[in-house]
């Protein structure tokens, strides 16, 4: 009777499994645990996480690490993943030609055209000319309303632009109702005497005239040539609740394409592709290139620097002088990043095109021997390196009830998506693909403009709800949930995440529907794309139809929606696909660690 521990070091989590090997060669599983990986996968810094996980596992059965007679480390696949984001476009407003924003409370509705007239110069107004009055916040809402009411009989005032957030207050005090836009921070930049059009949308709608080039042409009397130049302005106002467009001679909105750099593919069919072309073109080039030897980027561009950084990181792990470090796969995903427009008057943002990239770097082998030696020294237990990661994962996956050979596994972790197929005679084909959970977190962070990776991780992991009163909330699927104890007032009116140990408040003001959509899109873009790519490359004859069973394992298989997404996609190929349930109890986690313990029995026989 001896205790055997299997240890699996992943990019983001370290998992252990402890089993008891009986004299007759049967294995009886006792416990398992997981901890976040310390340091980069495959370095001696990993030992801290290994010890922590072993401690936790052993203490849960009331024993200590010293009771373990053998620790089996997996020969971790010598691949690490990294991610980077590259913004491709930038929008610039020149000559303050437009203001389009979503103040929470504009007032009135409809369009108005007139010359900009500062409220100080109201006495200079000429009767009969329509004006749009601009008021600084040195005037209170009562003063603005009084002045406008006073001149309403003599002057033709068509609309108002305010600096302070007082549109509704002014409108409630006006005798004649006109559209009012507020919260325009840089009102001092508005040129006096220039023709302007303003529009406030009806509640629940967005601007219609100013987001249409011909609408702007109608309001500002533009000719065909001028109408062509206002098209970018109209485009950038789509989806806004209120907007101002000024007719300035040099005014324009420009979309600059930033130099993003090229990626060079050194492969069977070598190619180079510019990042500007977008994710679809990049992925097509990667697919067409055949077997890829190495990927590099144009020096001194963001992508070039990122690829060099990943290689250098791997170089620090593998100290062998003839280390052969190569980037063998990349996954590019199109995304949109909200960026502050330069030259904007009201702090407007624009969704700029961006590309998210995950890369996979490969070396000959990771210095697993060093980890094993260090562990052995510290724990005084026999430590052995056993088995290839994908084989062990398949072995563990086979403990899922209802599986049989031939079997395909899809290991979706934090840094990489791995696939392996075991045929009936035990032959294993495997592949490692760039892009997994961490790329999803990065996409969520960028698209929602969170600027905080931690909250993006949590958005990825937990479902959302909106607290509508202190006693009920609406779930993201529309279901109402009532609670007995009142919800903490800190969550009142907020979008929250339903974590295991309570609620997490999302600080940024984002509608729940938008977060759900971004989260699902990010997962689909990364995992569905990668699942197909990975399975295709390991399927017999490169045809998905030759695979009948797919077991999903790894951290991202635990996700509450990714397995369902993949199931729907694979249903078209008549593939049985589902979340693994290792040993019938562990869910999709712990496959490799379980495989390591099982393989011990195999070796003894």
């Amino acid at each position, binding site marked *: 009777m001896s205790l055997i521990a299997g240890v699996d070091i992943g990019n983001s989590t370290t998992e252990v499994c402890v089993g008891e090997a009986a004299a007759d060669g049967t294995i009886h599983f006792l416990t398992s645990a997981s901890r976040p990986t310390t340091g980069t996968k495959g370095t001696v810094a990993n030992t801290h996480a290994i010890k922590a996980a072993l401690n936790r596992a052993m203490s849960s059965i009331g024993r200590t690490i010293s009771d373990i007679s053998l620790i089996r480390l997996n020969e971790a696949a010598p691949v690490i993943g990294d991610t980077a984001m590259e913004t491709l476009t930038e929008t610039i407003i020149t000559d303050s030609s437009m203001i389009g924003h979503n103040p*929470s*409370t504009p007032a009135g509705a409809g369009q108005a055209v007139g010359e900009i007239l500062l409220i100080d110069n109201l006495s200079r107004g000429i009767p009969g000319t329509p004006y749009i009055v601009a008021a600084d916040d040195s005037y209170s*809402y009562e003063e603005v309303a009084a002045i406008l009411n006073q001149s309403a009989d003599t002057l033709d005032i068509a609309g108002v632009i305010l600096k302070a*957030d*007082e*549109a*509704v*207050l002014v409108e*409630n005090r006006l005798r004649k109702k006109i559209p009012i836009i507020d919260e325009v921070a840089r009102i001092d930049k508005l040129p006096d005497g220039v023709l302007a059009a303003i529009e406030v949308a009806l509640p629940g709608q967005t601007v219609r005239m100013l987001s249409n080039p011909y609408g702007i042409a109608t309001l500002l009397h533009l000719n065909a040539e001028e109408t062509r130049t206002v098209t970018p302005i109209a485009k950038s106002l789509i989806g806004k609740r209120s907007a101002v467009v000024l007719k300035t001679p040099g005014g324009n909105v420009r979309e600059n394409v930033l130099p993003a750099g090229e990626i060079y593919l050194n492969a069977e069919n070598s190619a180079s592709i510019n990042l500007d072309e977008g994710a679809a073109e990049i992925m097509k080039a990667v697919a067409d290139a055949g077997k890829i030897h190495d990927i590099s980027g144009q020096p001194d561009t963001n992508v070039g620097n990122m690829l060099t950084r990943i290689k250098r990181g791997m170089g620090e792990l593998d100290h062998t002088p003839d280390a052969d470090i190569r980037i063998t796969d990349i996954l590019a995903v199109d995304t949109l990043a909200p960026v502050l427009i330069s030259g904007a008057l009201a702090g407007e943002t624009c969704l700029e095109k961006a590309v998210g990239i995950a890369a996979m770097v490969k070396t000959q082998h990771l210095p697993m021997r060093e980890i094993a030696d260090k562990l052995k020294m510290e724990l005084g237990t026999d430590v052995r390196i056993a088995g290839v990661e994908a084989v062990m994962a398949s072995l563990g996956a086979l403990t899922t009830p209802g599986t049989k050979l031939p079997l395909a596994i899809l290991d979706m972790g934090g840094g990489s998506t791995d696939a392996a197929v075991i045929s009936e005679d035990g032959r294993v084909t495997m592949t490692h693909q760039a892009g997994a959970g961490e790329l999803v977190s990065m996409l969520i962070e960028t698209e929602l403009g969170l600027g905080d990776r931690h909250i993006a991780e949590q958005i990825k992991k937990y479902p959302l709800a909106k607290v*509508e*009163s*202190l*006693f009920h909330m609406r779930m993201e699927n529309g279901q109402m949930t009532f609670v007995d104890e*009142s919800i903490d*007032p800190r969550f*009142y*009116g*907020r*979008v929250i995440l339903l974590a295991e140990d309570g609620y997490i408040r999302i600080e940024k*003001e984002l509608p729940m529907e938008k977060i759900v959509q971004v989260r699902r899109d990010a997962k689909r873009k990364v995992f569905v794309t990668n699942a197909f790519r990975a399975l295709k490359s390991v399927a017999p004859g490169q045809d998905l139809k030759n695979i009948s069973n797919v077991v999903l394992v790894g951290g991202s298989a635990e996700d509450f929606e990714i397995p369902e997404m993949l199931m729907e996609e694979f249903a078209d190929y008549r593939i049985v696909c589902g979340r693994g349930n290792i040993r019938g109890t562990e869910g999709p986690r712990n496959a490799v660690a379980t495989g390591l313990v099982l393989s011990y029995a195999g070796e003894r026989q």
Partner: protein
Amino acid sequence: MQVNEDLVKQITNAVLTEMKHRKDTNPAPVTSGSPAASTAVTQSLAGRDRINPVKTSYASYPRAKKGTDPKEVVIGVGAAFQKEIQKTICGIPLDDVLKNVKAGIEEEGMVPRVVKILDTSDVCFMALEAAKTSGSGIGIGIQSKGTTVIHQKDLYPLSNLELFPQAPLMDLETYRKIGKNAAKYVKGEQVVPIPCTNDPMSRPKYQVKAALMHIAETEQLDPEVGIIEWEEK
């Protein structure tokens, strides 16, 4: 009525005189002599057991009814508000305070209503009473010294939505934002955190004044009358 600055001076002078007097005659430590000191303070203000000798009668005012408008935010002001006390602890006219809170509510499209709470001078209970009177269930309590709470009718008195405890550091902009946030709670929208300054010295600096203003407010309470509609000024 009596301006509070005068009162503060009066008491400070009384205490100083007493301390000087005690030093001259009896050099005993302050702790042992404290009961004597407190009687001396009352003695120096001889003949006065109230800050404001006259108590305003609100018996003839219309009693506040529970609102039915779901867009309503009720502002519950203190008993001495705009009557015995005209300015907050840091000198902001209460008229302006009320005007800005109402403007904040109106800008968000909700409807403000002002009541005067004569049951209690505790700001949390005031705010809760305002919330219970409000058609939307959201209320704001404002003490005459400026301390403000946003409350919801289903909460416990001391577990409010938002509390602004440091009245000496508030300005009109803050009061405007309080009104806006209260209205956003009604609409179920995400509220914007209101930036507040914090000064650990404001407590010792304003403690006497705050206590006096609170007493001035408390002595105007009239639980028989309860809550009245308050549209004065």
